């Protein structure tokens, strides 16, 4: 029980440090009067973080791979864009509705793939992702096809329009933090434990009352919801949508972010999204040659750091804290 009290105290201190860190980080770019470009990059990190968190729930926690996740990103983006163009809804409606639309599609994707495992699941999700891309390209009366969907209005609440990257920053980050907290809530509850049990051993999980089918569907739906919201925010930020934004390359990119950041850790989703997005910006001059670097990076991580950056750090948490002098033996 003393150990429990100690854990609680340590947990509280950890919470305080993290909250303070988040607040400081949030206002840092504001204080430095950063350029629109910096805010653009930061916002991109947030979209990816949301989508990657969703994928992490599915891949990292439930152990179900998906290489079709860009499709859910696309569903969210197009739903949001079309609703805004046709009906002029406010952000309050657009964001949740696009999340829900993606969740519905994700549910059916999950249902279609329920019996597939591992490599077959990967192939199944590639197929479904490709199917969604195909629909977007060919249903050109609705989506603009490969010509793209142009002139998507900015998000607005009442008469306030989020028409600069700086303004969007104050919309996107609170949403991201809220979604991260929600994800953490699910993960640390019986739902999260059930998902992790399925990842570890589906047969044992089922033998202890866990409805593996139900929880897999839940994971697919939830991760799609996250993808949809990310898509919605992205669509209104760029103002244009092309099918290229949602190709299989993007699905693989999301997957890489999960792996590099750390499967099964929420902080890993942030880390993966931030590193890769920043990397894109730094290496922009290399154009297609970038992919070579990412390929090598991915192989490196799979071989030497399969838990990803945050996964490896968390595994050595006690040792690192000791090294920093925060912990007495």
């Amino acid at each position, binding site marked *: 029980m003393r150990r429990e009290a100690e854990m609680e105290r340590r947990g509280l201190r950890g919470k305080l440090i993290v909250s303070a860190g988040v607040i400081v980080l949030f206002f840092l770019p504001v204080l430095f009067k950063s350029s629109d470009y910096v805010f653009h990059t930061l916002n991109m990190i947030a979209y990816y973080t949301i989508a990657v968190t969703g994928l992490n729930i599915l891949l990292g926690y439930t152990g179900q791979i998906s290489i079709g996740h860009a499709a859910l990103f696309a569903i969210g983006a197009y739903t949001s864009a079309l609703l805004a163009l046709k009906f002029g809804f406010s952000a309050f409606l657009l964001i949740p509705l696009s999340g829900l639309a993606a969740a519905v599609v994700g549910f059916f994707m999950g249902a279609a793939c329920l019996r597939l495992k591992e490599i077959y699941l990967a192939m199944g999700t590639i197929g479904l992702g490709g199917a969604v891309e195909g629909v977007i390209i060919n249903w050109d009366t609705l989506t603009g096809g490969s010509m793209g969907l142009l002139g998507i209005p900015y998000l607005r609440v009442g008469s306030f329009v989020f028409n600069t990257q700086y303004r969007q920053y104050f919309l996107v980050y609170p949403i991201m933090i809220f979604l991260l907290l929600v994800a953490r809530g699910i993960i640390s509850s019986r739902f999260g434990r059930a998902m992790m049990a399925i990842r570890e051993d589906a047969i044992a999980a089922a*033998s202890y009352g866990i409805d593996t089918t139900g929880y897999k569907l839940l994971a697919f739906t939830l991760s799609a919801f996250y993808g949809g919201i990310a898509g919605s925010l992205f669509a209104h930020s760029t103002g244009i949508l092309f099918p290229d934004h949602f190709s299989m390359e993007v699905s693989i990119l999301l997957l890489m972010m999960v792996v590099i950041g750390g499967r099964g850790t929420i902080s890993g989703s942030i880390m993966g999204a931030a590193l890769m997005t920043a990397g894109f910006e730094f290496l922009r001059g290399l154009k297609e040659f970038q992919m070579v670097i990412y390929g090598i990076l991915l192989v490196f991580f799979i071989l030497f750091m399969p838990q990803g950056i945050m996964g490896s750090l968390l595994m050595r948490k006690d040792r690192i804290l000791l090294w920093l002098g925060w912990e007495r033996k």
Partner: protein
Amino acid sequence: MVGMGKKIAMSIKQPILLELKGLSKNFEGLKALDKVDLTLKKGVIKALIGPNGAGKTTLFNVVTGLIKPSAGQVIFLGMDITGKKPFQISKLGIARTFQNIRLFNNLTVLENVMIGAHNSTKANFLAALFRLPSLKEEERKIKEKACEILDFVGLSHCLYLRAGSLPYGQQRLLEMARALAAKPQLLLLDEPTAGMNLTETAELTRIIKRVRDLGVTIFLVEHRMKVVMGISDEVAVLDYGVKITEGTPEEIRNDERVIRAYLGEKRSYKEKELAGS
């Protein structure tokens, strides 16, 4: 003597907990189970023995719903549970351990046991999303319960270790703890002492008896005759999917058919070993 009291109580009519009626399972022409009838009275320890490949684990898998039987019925508490899904059967109060340990290796010891208690958690999705007080209270209770159970099996020193990092014997104990967390009425143990040393085996035997005394009915598959004869109230023998006999440990020890099933037609010195242990 608690044990003696139990034995006497058992000879008086005890309600039937589990009943298998004509249970058969064919794997592509191989009869893994052939019209097995078996009953399990409440509060007993019943052992299921038989040579390798006799169908013991298959029988467990059928009872827990992992495998659908080709014919026959599984009746638990008077309810036909044949063909129900494993998670549904688990909710009715049947827990099991596995012959080839199936822990959630990358989760902590504590988390493993908390997952075992999945059926007794009720928090809804909204409570989890926003970490409402009701959820925190439930989590605290489950954690406490899990710690108690880990204390009971003697694993309270490694709550936060990765389950996969435990030594083999302790992994078996952890499987037992996880099963107990499910608060089962019927506990199926598939070779609980396999790979354990003598001290660990003695410890586990003691735990199994204590669990029985808590009112849990135990059905176990076991190869070590010493364990089987020492703790079971009843023994059933399976050979090539057929139940060849059933009775008290003494009756089984001296049964011709059992000796034949284990040792073949020609008798050897091993027979003495079986009879003597």
